[in-house]
């Protein structure tokens, strides 16, 4: 009798199911991801055990870092454009349509109103070079010299106006007034933080958030 030959199983594996699953996951990640933007002005925020997340939209973020440099930006593009329109009339600086388009793409701005036109005319990568943007002027007054005061106020007005315009839309959900968050570097000294807090308090923006990183429950 001849030996019964053991039939060798094929070594190739059917990849169809694996392929299906991996592409399903891939499409999930493609659709849900919002690409991480390179931060315009990176700061190292301190950690806290707070679990509340910062909302994605309807927030005005004040960034403080690098020995008291202050940057301001809104999360929504339409609010940014409207804010700049209002700032332009307050400070008497005219902007072209191109400037507005550029500004809509800028995450935040950290320069006095006088110099903002030059910054908008620059290449986006050049704007972030050290020494180009040295912070928005902040002081303890409510006058035009306290430019942060004007930025925050105009942004809040802009957000409120845009909400009013959208009110007639059928599926409109009121996001409420613009929230203000302070994103400060952990090593930043208190006087520069205090100047910003007092600026907010002067316009009765008594509630705000500190942006922090995540820390484990206990150290």
């Amino acid at each position, binding site marked *: 009798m001849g030996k019964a030959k053991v039939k060798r199983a094929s070594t190739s594996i059917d990849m169809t199911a694996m392929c299906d699953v991996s592409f399903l996951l*891939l499409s999930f990640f493609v659709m849900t991801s919002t690409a991480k933007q390179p931060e315009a002005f990176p700061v190292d925020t301190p950690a806290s*055990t707070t679990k*509340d997340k910062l909302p994605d939209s309807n927030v005005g973020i004040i960034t403080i870092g690098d020995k008291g440099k202050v940057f301001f930006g809104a999360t929504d593009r339409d609010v940014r454009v409207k804010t700049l329109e209002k700032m332009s009339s307050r400070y008497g600086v005219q902007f072209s349509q191109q400037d507005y388009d550029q500004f809509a793409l800028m995450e935040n701005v950290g320069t006095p109103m006088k110099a903002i036109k030059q910054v908008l005319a620059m290449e986006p990568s050049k704007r972030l070079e050290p020494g180009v943007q040295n912070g928005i002027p902040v002081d303890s007054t409510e006058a035009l010299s306290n430019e942060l005061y004007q930025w925050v106020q105009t942004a809040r007005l802009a957000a409120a106006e845009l909400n009013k315009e959208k009110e007639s839309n059928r599926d409109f959900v009121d996001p409420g007034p613009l929230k203000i968050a302070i994103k*400060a570097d952990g090593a930043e*000294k*208190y006087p520069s933080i205090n100047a910003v807090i007092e600026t907010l308090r002067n316009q009765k923006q008594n509630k705000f958030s500190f942006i922090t990183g995540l820390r484990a429950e206990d150290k």
Partner: protein
Amino acid sequence: MAELNQDSGKGGKGGKVRSKKNGGKVDLTAMVDLAFLLITFFMLTTSLNKPQAMDVAMPDKDKTEKKEEVLTADNRSVTVLLGSDNKVSWYYGQINAPIEGPTVAGFGADGIRKVLIEKKAYVPRVSGGKDVIVIIRPSDMSTQKDLVDILDEMKIVDIKRYMIAKISPEEIDVLKRDNIYND
């Protein structure tokens, strides 16, 4: 396994040599490789770790009156002065006549948290059931990290009443004396 090319050509009419049918099976290995590479890429670039927002509420500012001091009962108020080098100084009562302190402490479980937990239990007993008030006074030498840390302690210890207030010159002297007012 779905093998489509099993036909070995047996029993064909007239013994014609049939060309073997091929193409029923595609090697998907490379495709899977690519798909996983892309998944990895998208997973890493997605900002999954959204930053946390710690809500702070300040009292309404009275612009007409210069006086910013809020009077609190002596036996209810614990004042925490934020100094430099991640150190705080705390006292119970008033700065001119403190019931306890001022004492230097650090952050974390063995530092100011222990004090706060103790005072949170102690104050209602001496003040007729009223809870403790913590006043946070950051000095010019303290950092944002100190401020966030102490606010975090308020959350951890679950202190309902606390406020951030301005530091007085006497309190700065206390920090200087304890050598935690360094630039």
